[in-house]
Each structure stands twice: as structure tokens, then as C-alpha cells.
């Protein structure tokens, strides 16, 4: 995973998990979970998302519930990554544990340089976001522990082979 390219979708501050994935869409059925993404915010949004698309948020992205159905839905819709000013802690853990990259702008005001629908590329080599015009925006490099979880393919692959090893 050296880079991700996709269209960006812009959201504001404090985008909570009840808006990302409404609680009435809680289910174990992957179709229901997939289609629930942003279903109350904009009933047409989920069907317009493409694999690799990048969600862009403001402050406190993902605040609220710990229900991982929101992460499952983002993964089922093949969202490539989320870039935000910062993240709510439970959401950040859930996404990271399941291999969905959450990256922060190095400078919060850089969010204003992105327009909805533009294609941007995240580089995991130099921790940047680059647009079609060549404009490059710095991101905060992920920490070593987060990178380790990504490289292992998720937290569960860090489980010891047996309970005795724990």
C-alpha cells in the first residue's frame, strides 16, 4: 500500500457515527450494512461512491457510538481512506484495527484546498495528498504502531497463536 487514488467527498466537523451509519441500519446482513452508509444524510450518496474514494472530514470525525457497523459499511463500500483535521478516538481505533487508513492534515486549513469530486492521491511514502494540478498537501505521518497494524492486515493478526502466549 504505497498510494491510494480516488475522488474526494467533503464533510464538516463532528461527523458522528449515527450519521455515517444510522442505527436503524444495524444488521449482520452485509447488503443492509453496505447500503446504510450515509442513508439518512443523502439517500443517493452511497450508490455514487466508487472503490478507492477518499472521505475528507473536519474536526472530530467519527464521534459517537462504538458500533463497528460504520466501519464495516465503509469497508464494504471500499472507501480507500479518510483524511480529516482529527478523529474521535474510538472511530480511529476501529478503522485502524480493520485496516482503513485514517490520516490527519498536517495543517487544518489545507482542507479548504480540496473541492468535492476532485481526484487526489495519498502517498504513504512521503505522507502527502497530491491533486491533479500538482498541488501537494502534507499529512501527519502515521505512528509506528498504527503502521504495524496496517502491515499485519489488522489488529486480529496480532493475536498470539494461543491464549497461553497472551
Amino acid at each position, binding site marked *: 500500500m504505497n498510494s491510494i487514488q480516488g475522488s474526494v467527498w467533503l464533510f464538516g466537523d*463532528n461527523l458522528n457515527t*449515527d450519521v455515517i451509519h444510522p*442505527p436503524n441500519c444495524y444488521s449482520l446482513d452485509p447488503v443492509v450494512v453496505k447500503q446504510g452508509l450515509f442513508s439518512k444524510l443523502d439517500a443517493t450518496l452511497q450508490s455514487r461512491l466508487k472503490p478507492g474514494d477518499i472521505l475528507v472530514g473536519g474536526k472530530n470525525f467519527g*464521534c459517537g457510538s462504538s458500533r463497528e457497523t460504520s*466501519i464495516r459499511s465503509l469497508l464494504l463500500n471500499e472507501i480507500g481512506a479518510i483524511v480529516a483535521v482529527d478523529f474521535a478516538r474510538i472511530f480511529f481505533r476501529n478503522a485502524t*484495527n480493520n485496516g482503513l487508513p485514517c490520516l490527519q492534515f498536517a495543517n487544518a486549513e489545507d482542507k479548504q484546498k480540496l473541492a468535492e469530486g476532485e481526484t487526489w492521491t495519498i502517498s504513504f511514502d512521503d505522507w502527502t495528498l497530491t491533486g491533479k494540478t500538482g498541488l501537494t498537501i502534507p499529512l501527519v505521518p502515521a505512528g509506528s504502531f498504527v503502521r504495524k497494524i496496517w502491515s499485519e492486515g489488522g489488529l*486480529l493478526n496480532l*493475536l*498470539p497463536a494461543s491464549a497461553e502466549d497472551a
Partner: protein
Amino acid sequence: MRETLSDKVIRSHALNGTGQEDYVHARIDALLGHDATIALLINEFERRQLSIWDKSKVIFTNDHFSPAASIERADISANFLRFSRNQKIDHLLVDKGICHQLLVENSLCQPGSLIVGADSHTIMGGGLGACATGMGSTDILFALATGTTWLRKPKTIRVIFHGSLPETCSGRDIILELLRLLGEDGAQYRCLEFHDHAQPKLSQDDRFAIANMAVEIGAKFGVFVPDEITLAYCHARDQQTPGNLVLPDADADYEYTLELDLSELSPRIAKPWSPANVVALSELDSIPISTAFLGSCSSGRIEDIQEAAEELEGKTIHPDVRLIIIPASINIFKQALDKGYVKILTEAGAIFNQSSCGPCGGIDKGVLGSTDVCISTSNRNFRGRMGHWDSRTYLASARTVARAALKGCISGDLYS
């Protein structure tokens, strides 16, 4: 060492190094889970043929679908109970109430303990001086199998309560005021460490309400420094007093200190659609309501039900309002029965539902339709959470909810 309370708890639970690293691998003292989030990990847990690290330290309950209202949820609930019984969970509490209330009713929740739970409001254990925090199902699966978790050591904001809480206010008004002051991310990744210097001290129920909603400010832990109120509660619950209390150092290293004079407080209300969209109730014009909800892990305790009974005894709620009351646990329901509150409130027109999450998360009886306006003691009024996208929820204390149910509206003169 200049350590805060959470610094000490994390250091004493760290398995590697000094506890000073960015991420600490720590052992946990207890794990909490419920039907809706444990259901998300059962297949993976069984596929990997894992076993639970210590069945005596696990509390599970079916609080989201208790009882189930749809066929899919009945199946999810049945599978959750099958898993829990197969695993021989020591504290499988079926239809006994909301998991966070059941945690603080359980002797596993001790001051100074480190607890993780598969729900964001696990943080409520902080009302007893525990470092308790919510996580998603993947983290909880890891913790269930290993008895450990990964933690980043948070910075701590010290919050000191002074003065005397007015009779019209409760812990709900205090936490709503903190949300007004700090916003939805004011304590993001941080520990809120509460020091109760009020006269008289806050009740344990008020502390639970405050700790519960610390997560609405983004906090990882919302922990009260344990004191005689904590000890009295634990002694009544456990028939013994906790051992060595974990207390912060007098010169602990805080990010900053926030002092709140409770004498200055008046009833607070959070307007749609954020728990931090808080104003003084007295600032509001009249807003007709269709629904009043007294329940959830944030409230629904005996003092909340008592406040409502005080307000509504011998009266009848407004004919346009449905007042739904859900005691946070069966134990609380039994207390409310014994004290006569259920009779008083039922005669006033309230309906009691089974101790569970109810309509708080928009999943059970009491959800809101498109034109509904609700005043609620729950913890989140995010858009669409309690039902229809166009429904509107205001958050307030149990006393304010009862007064609004009586008058048929939220208004600035509810207390005049």
C-alpha cells in the same frame, strides 16, 4: 512522580516497559459487552477457535434487543445468548438492564481498575474511580481473547466542582454545562479527572450521569477521584470497602484545570443536533413536545425517577405528550416499585418499558417519527439517532423532562 489518576492506573496495568511509551500494552481487570456489539465478533471468535482469557471477569447482557422487536434481532439475540452460555460467561445478565448500569452494580467495577467495554458509554465506570473506556468489536475481541489491550496514555484535564448544586439541578445539568464549555471534542483523547469539592458532595447517581457523558466531550476516561461517596457506594454493594485507593499526586501534571462553581448553575438543555449545543433552559421560547423520555444509561437511575415522581405526584401529564420511563436496570425498577414511584408516575400518565436501551439508539419501542419533538434524558441528540431524520431531540435532566411532560412543552419558564 507527578502522576494523574489515569497515569497511575495505566502504569500499574502496563505489561511492557514503564508505561511511558506512546502505546502501552496493558492488562484489563474486566470486560463489558452487549448483544449488539458482541454479535459482531462471534463468528470471528469462533472461527479462530479462541477462548476467553478469564470468564469471571466478563459481564455480558442483552440490553439492545431486550426483548427483540424484529425477527433478525431475535436471531441475533439468540446467537448472542448461545455464545455467552457456551463460553460459560460468569456474569451473563439476561434482561437485567443496560450494560453500563450493570457494570457499576457489579463488584468487578472497582476504583483504580482498568475496564474496557464494547460500547462508548463504558466510560461511566469512571463514576466510581475506574478507568473505563469504550471500544469497537475488534478491540474487544482482542481483549476477550488475551485479557489485554493497547492504550495511548492520555493527557488529563482536571475539573474541580465547587459550591452547592441548586435543588433544580442534577448531574445532568453539570455535564451539559461542561459540554457547553468544552464542545464535542474538548476532551478528545484525554482523561477528564473530576474532583468533587462541592458542599454537599455530589451523589453517586449524579457522578454516573457526569462520567457517562464525558465521552460526548471526546474523553477516553471520565474519572472521579474516589472519596467517601465512592467508598460508601462500594461498601453497600460489596459488603466490603475497596483496598488501596488510586489517587492522583498532589502535584500531578495536568494539561489545565477547569473550575466550576455549581452554585451558579441553572437547568441546562442541549438543542438539536448536538449534545454540546447547550443553552440555559431559561433562554428558550416555548417548544411543544410530543415525547418525553426518561431513561438510558445516562439517567434512568433511582434519583432520576424520584425527581420525576416529585414533580408529577398527584398530577397528570399533558394529553399531547407520551412520557416513556425506562429504569436503567431491574434493580432500579425494583427500588422504584418499593418506593411507590412506579405507581405515582403511572397514575400521572407515564408508561414504563423494560430496562434496556429503548429508543435512545433508535432501535426499540419509542423511536421518533418525522414530526416528533422529544425531550430526553439520554446522552445523544444527533440527527436521526432516535428515529426519523426530521425528528428533534432536546437533552435535559429528569426533573426538566418531567416538568416539560406536564406542561406539554419545553419553555424558559419551566422553573419560574
